[in-house]
């Protein structure tokens, strides 16, 4: 073949021009079309053959009502909650009141639960001193709509008498969060504390022990724009939607620390005054641990595809489908108090400033004038056991 140098030069020039042209075209196309228009949108499945299951929520432990008052706390009776499953499109589950609920023991004795009368679906075991004992089997029996639902026999886990939380402390940390109510899911970095518990050497024979930690928080809230003599100035607040999750863990042998929960410091009025969390430790047997762990893991919403979905296990048997898991746990608790003065840095109480700043031309916001307007369950009655450091 005869090489034509002039054509070669033209070829290379055209290559360069083509590249430049393409770059311009690319920019125009990209601006015109909204690229990577991947999207998420709601989708409706037509569910066939919907059925309704009974849901039984129940637990007993080795701490009686009177034992729990000594944590200190307001005290807790053992309860059973009954409800029905409902369609994923409905929001409110139906509660069940007309059922017989009984706790049977392996020594052939039993105790009856009584309906609460104040809350639908709630049944109490109103015995101040009753608590689970080692070596005795317990099972729950529910009769609803002429159908019997019976749990398998459950026992206290081994070595629960060794369980305790030695100390609770915290580390000052920074954490990336998406602020509640954020419209654009922007991640921000906030200061806070990671609360951790130190467990003593609580196992024998190096067997693995399984735990679940739950939290009951209470804090002081003060209405910023009224004086100290106002009866609605100071409230003690609880909120069932705050710290309502749980932490799972397991340990064997040596003592160890467990990170429990994070509390934001700046811009968090919960810690402006006194803040307290009752940390409840449940020592579980493995099936119960797996049940709670699977419940936690069953909630997943991410870009990476999820694992095969599955139904939670149940230890109830019946001729109809049933949900729920009856468990007997070893329980202990630690009452932890916190003040913002324990931090190495200053946290400003901006409640008063916010009341004034957002006042506009009208009256103050309700929470500025009465602590009872604060969200959650505020009460002006100070708990008898409230003794912050």
């Amino acid at each position, binding site marked *: 073949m005869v090489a034509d140098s002039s054509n070669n030069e033209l070829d290379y020039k055209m290559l360069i021009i083509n590249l430049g042209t393409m770059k311009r075209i690319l920019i125009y196309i990209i601006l015109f079309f909204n690229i990577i228009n991947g999207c998420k949108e709601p989708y409706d499945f037509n569910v066939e053959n919907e059925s309704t299951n009974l849901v039984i929520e129940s637990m007993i432990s080795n701490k009686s009502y009177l034992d729990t008052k000594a944590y200190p706390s307001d005290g807790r009776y053992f309860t059973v909650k009954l*409800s029905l499953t409902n369609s994923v499109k409905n929001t409110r589950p139906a509660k069940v009141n007309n059922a017989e609920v009984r706790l049977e023991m392996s020594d052939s004795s039993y105790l009856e639960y009584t309906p609460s009368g104040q809350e639908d679906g709630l049944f109490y075991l109103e015995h101040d001193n009753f608590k689970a004992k080692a070596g005795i089997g317990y099972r729950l029996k529910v009769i609803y709509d002429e159908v019997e639902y019976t749990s398998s026999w459950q026992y206290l886990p081994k070595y629960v008498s060794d369980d305790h939380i030695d100390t609770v402390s915290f580390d000052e940390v920074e954490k990336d969060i998406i602020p509640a109510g954020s419209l654009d899911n922007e991640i921000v970095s906030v200061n806070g504390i990671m609360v951790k518990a130190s467990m003593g050497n609580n196992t024998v024979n190096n067997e693995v022990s399984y735990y679940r930690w739950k939290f009951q928080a209470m804090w002081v809230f003060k209405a910023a724009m009224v004086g100290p003599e106002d009866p609605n100035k100071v409230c003690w607040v609880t909120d069932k939607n705050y710290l309502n999750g749980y932490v799972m863990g397991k340990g064997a042998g040596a003592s160890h620390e467990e990170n429990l929960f994070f509390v934001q410091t700046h811009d968090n009025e919960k810690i402006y005054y006194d803040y307290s969390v009752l940390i409840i430790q449940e020592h579980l047997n493995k099936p119960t641990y797996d049940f709670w762990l699977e419940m936690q893991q069953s909630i997943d919403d991410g870009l990476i595809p999820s694992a095969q979905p599955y139904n939670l296990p149940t230890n109830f048997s019946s001729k109809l489908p049933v949900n729920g898991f009856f468990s007997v746990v070893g329980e202990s608790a630690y009452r932890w108090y916190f003040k913002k003065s324990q931090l190495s840095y200053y946290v400003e109480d901006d409640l008063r400033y916010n009341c004034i700043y957002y006042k506009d031309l009208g009256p103050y916001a309700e929470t500025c004038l009465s602590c009872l307007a604060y969200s959650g369950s505020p009460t002006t009655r100070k708990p008898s056991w409230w003794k912050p450091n």
Partner: protein
Amino acid sequence: MYSIKITLLGSFVFILSSSYAQDLKSVFIDKDANGKVLSELLYNLEDDYNIDFIFNEEMIMPYTVQEVNGRIRIVDYLEYYLVLYKVLTYGDHVAVIVPKSESPGFVKEGVNLYVVSNESFIGNLVDGSNSQSVIGAQVYLNKDSNTGTLTGADGSFEVDNLSSTYNIVNVKYVGYEGLSLVIAQSKVYGQNEEIKIEIFPESKELEGVVISARKEDANFQSKITGIESMGIETLKTLPTFLGEVDPIRGITTLPGVSTTGELSSGFNVRGGEIGQNLIMQDQAIMYNPSHMFGFFSGFNPDMVSDIALYKGGGPANLGGRLSSILDVKLKNGSLDHYAISGGIGLISSRLNVEGPIGSKVSFMVGGRLSYSNWLLHANDDIQLKQSSANFNDITAKLLYNISKKDIVSLTAYRSYDDFKLASDSTFSWESQNLAINWDHNFNDRLASNFSLSYSSYLSEVNNPSPVDGFSYYNGINDVKLGYAADWEQNQDVTYKVGLEFLYNDIEPGKLETHGEQVSIEPSNMHNQYSLESAFFAQGDWSISEEFSIVAGIRYSHFSRLGKDVIYDFDYDRIESRYPTIQDSTLYDSGEKIISYHGWEPRISLRYLMNSSSSWKLSYYRSYQYLHLVSNTTATTPQDYWINSGPSLKPERGDQFSVGFFKNFDTNNYELSAEVFYKTTKNAIDYIDGADLTLNPSLEEGMARGEAKAYGLEMMIKKKSGKINGWISYTYSRSKRKFNDDSRGEQYVINNGDYYPSAYDQPHNASLVLNYRTGLRGVLSLNFNYSTGRPITIPISKFSYDGYLAVLNYSNRNEYRIPDYHRLDLSYTLKDRKYKGRKVTGEWVFSLYNLYGRKNAYSITFDQYGKATKTSILGSIFPSISYNFKI
């Protein structure tokens, strides 16, 4: 696919001309020659001067020498006197006299004029524009078109029975300019070396042509069913996503092959799982054939020669996977000249360089690099703004033509991907391959291939946080050794025998922590080691013109080896879903833990009904000893492999198929209809709530049962013309059943009834249409449809403890996501081609997802059971790229 063509590369000695010969140009005649019979004059001159005149004696006989008026060169006289003839000189001593009516218009020594020393003409046909071998071209005698041959896989050919004088030999290949050769025979001055012949693409309007190494009638002639092959030129005509040619996406337009949609790093064949496909590139195993979760191919399209997919076991030399074998072959670098090619795309670019090293060695190196982050950062979504995605790969091949009998090639490949989604964790995965192939020809009927390859795949999730950072790895390494020999007993009978060994070293999962306050414990699953070996033998018999049989047997053996710890489980003590460990056994390094073996018969029958149609019947059995574990409903690069073991038996697949194949209109149309039925024993699925990550008891999270798949695949294809393409439709079902409760009730799925597998897509259709708009443009259209994949959905919810909604799910795979369909359009505009042009290129404009359908990649449910459909590509997706070659 192609059987290995036996190339006859004899070594011949070029015979030098006699030292007494004189140059033709110095041979004169004078007036004394007048009146002599011309042919006698020429013979006398041959004797006197040791030159050679080649001519048809009968044609020249009537002529006598006249009009010689003075001293004149003989060649000048012949040109003047024989007005009806051309006088072609070859070298200094040969003149060939050819009638003008038979001779090509343009004749030039070394271009289309050759002199050989005997009645065989051996040549090698290459594309003059890129030095690639031209395969399947027709080479035949002009006077007798039945005397000729097709060029082989390396472009070689041999034409026998040449006339002792001159021959006109035509070379014809669609899309190329025809070439006429003048081949003369001279015992003294002829050569016997293989002659390189060049042909060039047509510079006039091209017909739509698929350039592949398949014979035109392979649809009904080939003796084995369930094979789909595609040349890289066909792949390049399909509309692309962001200008990226993807062989995997290409084969999903063929019947029986589907994918789970965008962001799928694999494909499904006849309802089988992704992990049941073996993918090889030049004999080295590829564990992840894609980049960026499946958006882009892991294969460099500029380096791929062709791909072949065996649906089912395939020939006896292939095995190890139940569903398919995908064999990707790379090109060889040019032995003649250097070339640079590449492409610039929206988010990635590639560059390839090839050329000779000396006269016997060629190299080819290609690389790709992505720069997609600007695209992510241009998005409004905050999470994507803070994300990044990168990939790069490099492929290299060295070819060494040691001799006519030995060719050695070395192929190396490395690819890397990483992806970070807003959070601190980075997902990355890396593949490395190295393959050596040695082809040896004992003679023209016996050839062998020796291959040695190494493959490595590693995936990692890395969280660098100083507080709770961790790194999670899994991976697989293997070394494969193979030897196969092909013997052609005669044109009706060929045999193939061979051995194969595969050693696997698997890291099922390892977790390292490096944060100060890590709450998770480090963990390291024991590595798994195994040795797979196989012996195979296959015969290919053409019993008669109509009936042929390919029958083979493969014997495979698997050994799981230490060092490893194997647990013994107590199925009477089930804690939640898993049996408790009651004992464990430590195996030393190399110690055999357990072995499995099996015979894998492979048989294919073909019956030719007539010259254009056939029936084919086949049966394959395969064993699969490695299993891909996926913790998600769609596969990801973090999925990992495990060996069969004491608790996990190998899967065994049996497949039957029967099909009807017909060609129309001189092989321009192909029709195929094939029915298959496939059963799998020891199929695997996961129990509810199976914990498959870093779980030493993970095998106990697997239920064992059976699977079946059946279907009808149909395709009609038009191969050439202004409009060409194909339509394929598949109806198939893929179901599984797990009803063995001997280990516990948790191993029974869906009450032990058959349920659809995750890849059950009853209807699957593809349309590919190419339209040649003119000299250089091709408009391509691709439409895909498939039934929505099965899905398990929440059917009710309840509140429990602090959770407002806990979900109850339907039976596994009881519902379906919406159907998938998509239309793509692309336009390819090639630069003008002319002889001597050094830089050529093409623009590719693509519109992917033309009507902007929001196909469901997945449907996820929030904690309240509300379904959200996620579409990866929710609108039309344009792209433009420019490919060039220097």
